[in-house]
Each structure stands twice: as C-alpha cells, then as structure tokens.
C-alpha cells in the first residue's frame, strides 16, 4: 500500500478477463497517476484502454490485481465504492446525460441527493460551471435539444459539479461531429491547465501532444510504452508504437 503524498491512483497487476472471451482484456497493467497528471491513453481498438479506464472506478470489475485511490484500495470490497466514485468524475463517449431531466437537474442531482451541497449552492455551482464551458443559456434546456458538443460539455460539468479529485474521460470526442470536437477539447484543455488530474482515453493525438504530462500506449491488455509526450511522439522506442503512430499521425 502506498503512502506517497502525491500519488492519486496506483494500479498493480491489473487483469480483466471477460467471461465469454478467450483473451484477457487487461493482462498485468501497472500505473501510478500523480496529482495534477494528465495521462493520455492511446492504442488500437481492442487494446484494453477503455477497459483499463473503466476499471479505475470499478464500472468494470477487475478479475485480478489492485487499484488504490487516495490511499484506499478500490478493489477491496470492504471499502465503499460509492463514496470513492464521488471523487472520480467520469465522462463517456455517448455522453449519457439523463434525458428526462433538465440540464440544471442533470448537474445538481448528484451533489444534492448525495448530500454534498444544498440546493442553492448546487444551483450556483451549476451556473458557474456552465458559464465556464460557455453554455449559461442552456441551464433549463433538455439534453435532447442540444448538439453533441453541447451535451458532452454538459456531461463534463455534471462530473465537475461533484468536485472530483480526478476526471476519467472515455473517448469523449469519438461520437462527435468533427466540427464539435474542438469545443470539447478546449474545455478539457482548460481543465488540465487548472490542474485537474485527468486520465483520458482518446484518439486525439493533438490533445495528447499539447496537454498530456504522460502518454501511455496500450496493446493486447498491456502497456507497451509510457513517456512524456515529447519523447513519446518524437522518439518512440517501441517498434509496435512506431508503426501505430505512423498510421495515425
């Protein structure tokens, strides 16, 4: 168990074996994520990068290994996963806003119902966050009236409203029309600049180059390369990574 102060998430020997599959989706992943890190995970599809991210907040239950978050073991059943998830915001590829609730309710529901904020406070926070992502006029709209980019920005706000210590992004721009990717990435860049710890699974190499503190390359459920973006993109040591980069860049 780790007690180093600035380690936020520690992953050891993480394995995930889906029941119906013959191969392991994750096959021994070890990572340390420090406070303030922006870790970008890239890799071909089926490499296990989304599974890895979803294991971090136990949306996917690992079949082996350990994960610690803020010194508490997430994979230990005695710990209250719901409490820990409150500190881990997650943004999904398909937004997953609650369609039967207004934008305001989407944002304030969790903090209010989980007793973290009073209603007025949550409302103020929602307004302030919507201002930050440039959507203050959408507070009373319903998700179905919004564009993909707007939905994703609001999904980010919904996660931020809980004041999380880390934000997990699962391919946040993959379901967006090209012209909307920029607005979402801008919000994420600003978050990174403000010092939010982020783990981002994405295909946006530009984002990785610009804001990542570390880039991880995964394939076949393992981490094949991990480096600063500069080294990662300019001097890729791994043969497999070189061929991957040559295809996507």
């Amino acid at each position: 168990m780790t007690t180093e102060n600035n380690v936020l998430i520690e992953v050891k020997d993480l394995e995930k074996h889906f029941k119906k599959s013959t191969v392991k989706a994750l096959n021994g992943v070890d990572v340390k994520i420090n406070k303030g890190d922006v870790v970008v995970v890239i890799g071909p599809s089926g490499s296990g990068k989304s599974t890895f991210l979803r294991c971090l907040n136990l949306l996917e239950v690992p079949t082996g290994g350990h994960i610690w978050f803020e010194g508490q073991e997430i994979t230990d059943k005695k710990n209250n996963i719901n409490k820990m998830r409150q500190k881990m915001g997650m943004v999904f590829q398909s937004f997953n806003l609650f369609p039967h609730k207004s934008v305001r309710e989407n944002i304030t529901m969790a903090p209010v119902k989980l007793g973290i904020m009073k209603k007025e406070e949550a409302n103020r926070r929602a307004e302030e966050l919507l201002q930050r992502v440039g959507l203050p006029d959408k507070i009373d709209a319903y998700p179905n009236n919004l564009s993909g980019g707007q939905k994703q920005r609001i999904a980010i706000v919904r996660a931020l409203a809980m004041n999380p210590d880390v934000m997990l992004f699962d391919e946040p721009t993959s379901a967006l029309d090209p012209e909307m990717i920029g607005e979402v990435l801008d919000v994420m860049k600003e978050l990174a600049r403000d010092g939010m710890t982020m783990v981002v699974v994405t295909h946006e190499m530009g984002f990785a180059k610009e804001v990542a503190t570390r880039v991880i390359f995964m394939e076949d459920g393992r981490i094949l390369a991990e480096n600063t973006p500069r080294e990662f993109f300019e001097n890729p040591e791994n043969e497999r990574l070189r061929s991957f980069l040559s295809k996507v860049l």
Partner: protein
Amino acid sequence: MKEWLAGQKALFVLNFINDDRWRYLTDGLVLTLEITFFALILGLTIGIIIAIIRATHDNAYETMSPGPGKVILKLLNIVSKVYLTVIRGTPVVVQLLIMYYIIFATSNNKIIVAVLAFGINSGAYVAEIVRSGIMSIDKGQMEAGRSLGFNYVQTMTGIIIPQAFKNVLPALANEFITLLKETSVSGYIALQDLTKGAYIIIGRTYSAFMPLIAIALIYLILVMFFTWLVGRLERRLRSSDH
C-alpha cells in the same frame, strides 16, 4: 313510435327508478372504482419490485461476485418467476375464488380479498411491462448514475425507473384498463360491484336490456376518460423530448 317510446320509458322507470334501483349501479360503481384503485396501487408496487429483481438478475447476476447477495438475488428471482408463471397461467376468476374460499376462508372482508386478488394478478402483468421498460433504457444511464456515486437502488429509482415508466406508460394504461374491466367478476365472491349491481336489477325486473347496456356504457365512459387522462400525462412527460 309513440308506443315504443312509452314502453322504453316504462322499462327505464322499472329498472332504474322504482325502489331506487339506480343505487345498485352507483353503489356498484363506487365499489368497482375502489377495488380498481387499491388493486392498481398494489399491482404497481408488486410489479415494480418484481421488475427490479428480474432486471437486476438478468443484468448483473453474471458479473456479481459470489456471496450472500448473489444467493439472495437468485432466490428472489426464482420466487418472482414462479409468481409470474402461476398468476399469468391461471384465470383471474379462479385466483379470486381461491383467495376467497381457501386463503381467506376465515375472513369475510370481501373487499380486501378482491383488492388482494386483483392487485396480485395485475402485479404480474405490470412486472413484465416495467421490466421491458427497464431493459429498454441504455446501460450508459446506469453507468452514468453509478459513476456519480449513486448506489444501485438510487440509480434505479432516480434515473432508470422514471425513464422506463415513461416508455411503458401506454402499456401500463392498457393494463389499468384491463384491470378495471376484470373487476367485473367480483360478483363471484358476492361483492356488489357495478356488474353485480346490474345483475341484481335484472333479477328483480326480469328485464336485461337496459341494465346491461347501462353498465356497458358506464365501463366504456370510464375507460375513455382514463385513456384521455393517461394521454395528457404522456404529453406532459414527453415535454423533455421536444
């Protein structure tokens, strides 16, 4: 023509006015609505609980880690399945009679017996309707709820069920209408509901036409009224879709 009208008028007076016979219909209507209302509440409660058990079992059983929770879920699922099979596999009249003559043989509160019988019967149909509604909700909704820190039950009741309910409202309304009409067999346990009321009048007057047409019209108007009401509710719930 004039004679025919006079004859009809005499029949009307005989069937409804004499001895205040209309009261069989109004009292019967009140009882029908009473039984329907409480059976509806009971059916919805049972149905939603069973639906959650069944949907949870179908969604999560495979991935659950072994433990007492898993065993309990398995047992609850088996009980639910038996309940669904038995209730949907037997006629409601038979269930009503079993409830009255066997299960509550020592009690003579017939209204409660009827509410229980119809409520338990309706619950089975509601359960399958609500379960289909829960299954129709994208699994991302559950994940989004859980990722914010809600537990399973909070996510179900706060996020999944409201959406599922909206999706299955037409089917639920249909079930409610069926329930309302099914209470017409309450007479089997000597309850004087609307249908039994008409039957009593016929027994007194030996004239079947008017009482039967009268209750048919009353049922029809009730159903049309409730259909209209549900339509309004649907439109209101849909306000988030436009």
